[in-house]
């Protein structure tokens, strides 16, 4: 499994986990982009997008040592819903790596997920339908530091 695939899998697991005080994002968490809606599978806001934004191996260790930036944002119809979603996401992800204080996220047979750290806040308003509709995006940029086990 690639480093990014492991990171995506762990992020998704943390987002949809039911072992949290906040509602699970199960069925409302998408990698990279929400799929195109269909009649049988509409996409309803709010939902969460997690997507790679930058970074790569630090090359500070003999084994692969990815240092990835992954954006996780809540997409909502109102600013209040977007901000509330961001708060819930942060409660699930920030400081949740295997070496972090909360230790909620783990890697797999090939990779450690050492730390997951909230960095910059992301917040913007998308002017959809030529400005007739506003879609609010709010979330954070998470630095995911990993290390290959084998």
């Amino acid at each position, binding site marked *: 499994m690639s480093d990014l695939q492991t990171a995506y899998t762990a992020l998704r697991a943390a987002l949809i986990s039911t072992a949290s005080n906040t509602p699970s994002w199960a069925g409302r968490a998408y990698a*990279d*982009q*929400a799929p195109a809606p269909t009649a049988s599978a509409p996409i309803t806001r709010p939902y969460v*997008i997690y*997507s*790679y*934004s*930058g*970074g*790569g191996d*630090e090359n500070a260790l003999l084994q692969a040592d990815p*240092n990835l*930036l992954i*954006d996780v*944002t809540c*997409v909502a119809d109102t600013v209040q819903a977007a901000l509330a979603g961001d708060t819930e996401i942060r409660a699930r992800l920030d400081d949740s790596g295997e070496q972090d204080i909360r230790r909620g996220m783990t890697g797999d047979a090939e990779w450690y997920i050492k730390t997951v750290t909230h960095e910059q806040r*992301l917040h*913007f308003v*998308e*002017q*959809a339908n030529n400005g007739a509709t506003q*879609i609010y*995006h709010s979330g954070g*940029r998470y630095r995911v530091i990993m290390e290959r086990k084998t």
Partner: protein
Amino acid sequence: MSATLDDSVLRTLIDVFPVRFDQWLGTVASDIRDDIIVSINYPGPSKPGDPPGYDTQTLMDTLDISRIQALIWAVFSPKDRAVYLELGTEKLAKRPFFTPVLEAWRQYKLQQSAEKANLLNV
């Protein structure tokens, strides 16, 4: 276990040579803008996840730098499109062009630039 980063020498150098550091940061901002322009200087259309290519060169032409105050410089574009491309929208997969360049600077280019400017050997 905890670790503390000792940046006292760097802070002293900045206090003693503020103009020199400010000028260097201006150079860094300019170089970052140039790196972004290089990364997007190919014809579109781009693939999701890749930096955006150019159709009209609007994004490229609006990238600019600005000195906000002493020791704080900004690299920016005034176009909404820049945010949409960098972070994605509901219907547009993101095409990051700013973050990958910043990450390269964080990883090694900033140190190279400081060494080239002989900043740390005063």
